[in-house]
């Protein structure tokens, strides 16, 4: 799903008012597109206000059920005790007992005050160490999560970069061809006019003398939604022969290589209409460009 489509669906996404498949597709897009996620944020914040103020308490028994179900659903993971190297509880208990016995013996010699002081200091240090370990674990977990997200973003960027490189190389090839043709001394040029449906559009059709192929360059056409394309028609009497489809970039510019089955000199004119993305068998949409071809 493209960003434009996602942004159109964001308000309904925020309210869960999409079909389930649409919601999942938008949700998946938001996981990897920071720009759309940012667009979604004010809408989600508005939606969250609608949940304001019930103030009900979930029953206390629910917590146990929730944790049991969630933890039971996960594959087994190393426990915190193993991760942190803390020994099992019975070993800890044994160690504490021995330590306490030693401290008591020590206290008998050095006095009860000294014992209390040491116990407090020990407990304080243990608390500090545990707190530090927890903070470190949180930091490590966040870094791991960020690393995963960055890897995913980098992979997406790489694939977009590959696509751009390929598109750029295609454009360079087309421009070279155009420059070569433009320099030809006997190049034929026919002006193409915008109709009342596209009054700011114009273009030209350039072809070598034999008129076997031609380049159509147009400027000023509106970019179309993804479901539509511009379709070229060659006119012969009442016939309209399909010449192929093209789209324009965001500035309304396009160049299109026309390869008719017969030489262009066999046709009287050229028309361009708006059609569904798969193209039509005959013109069905509004006429946007027209040109008269001089038959030889």
């Amino acid at each position, binding site marked *: 799903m493209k960003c434009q489509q996602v942004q159109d669906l964001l308000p309904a996404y925020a309210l869960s008012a999409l079909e*389930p498949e649409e919601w999942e597709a938008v949700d998946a897009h938001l996981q990897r597109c920071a720009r759309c996620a940012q667009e979604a944020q*004010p809408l989600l914040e508005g939606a969250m206000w609608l*949940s304001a103020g*019930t103030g009900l308490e*979930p029953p206390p028994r629910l917590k146990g059920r929730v944790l049991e179900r969630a933890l039971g659903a996960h594959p087994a*993971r190393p426990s915190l005790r193993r991760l942190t190297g803390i020994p099992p509880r019975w070993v800890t208990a044994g160690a504490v007992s021995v330590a306490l016995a030693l401290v008591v013996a020590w206290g008998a010699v050095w006095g009860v005050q000294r014992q209390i002081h040491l116990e407090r200091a020990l407990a304080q240090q243990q608390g500090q160490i545990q707190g530090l370990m*927890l903070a470190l674990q949180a930091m490590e*977990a966040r870094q791991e999560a960020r690393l995963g997200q960055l890897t995913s973003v980098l992979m997406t960027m790489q694939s977009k970069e590959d696509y751009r490189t390929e598109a750029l190389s295609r454009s360079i090839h087309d421009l070279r061809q155009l420059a070569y043709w433009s320099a030809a001394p006997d190049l034929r040029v026919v002006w193409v006019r915008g109709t009342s449906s596209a009054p700011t559009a114009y273009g030209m059709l350039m072809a070598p003398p034999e008129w076997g192929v031609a380049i159509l360059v147009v400027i000023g056409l509106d970019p179309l939604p993804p479901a539509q394309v511009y379709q070229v028609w060659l006119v012969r009497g009442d016939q309209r022969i399909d010449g192929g489809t093209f789209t324009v970039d965001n500035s309304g510019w396009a160049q299109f290589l026309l390869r008719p089955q017969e030489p262009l000199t066999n046709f009287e004119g050229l028309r361009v209409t708006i059609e569904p993305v798969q193209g039509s068998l005959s013109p069905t949409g509004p006429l946007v460009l027209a040109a008269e071809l001089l038959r030889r």
Partner: protein
Amino acid sequence: MAYRDLGDPDLLALVAAGREPALEALYDRYARVVFGVAYALLQDVGAAEEVVQEVFLAVWQKAKTYSEARGSPRLWLMSIAHHRAIDLLRKRQRVGMVQVSDPLPLADHPPASEDDPTEGAIANERRARLHQALQHLDPSQREVLLLTYFHGLTQREVAQRLGIPLGTVKTRIRLGLLKLRSLLGPGMGMEA
């Protein structure tokens, strides 16, 4: 420092790393809000409990997919909660357990909890602010927000029910949500 002292992003990162106490701390912090969202839609304690279970199961399994670009963890969690509740609401509507009625959800809410007077007061204040803000919305925007959020209709179903184009529904939803947010602020995410 204990798990309950950690911030939401840290807790969520620890949940993603499989730390069970982090999930428990997150539950303690958000179970009430999730339960409230679910009850507001479903008007049924048992169904709201089911949603709470599904939400925390989803958090446990999907915490790795959360990124800060998607807003605060609270916002992320609340949108999961609402989505699960809507799913359940639609299922129950299909089997005739609940009827889509005229949108008047706020009046139907039970009074806030009496167990915790502070929380109850905050909830009542939020509800009053929301009610007031809704009165400032264009009635046509208010209608589509309530039909989608509280009655679980999709935007297409709203268009059919009201006999208006889908594009109009989309525009009303967008404008209504942005107006609500500008009237009330992003504050829901900061008041856990």
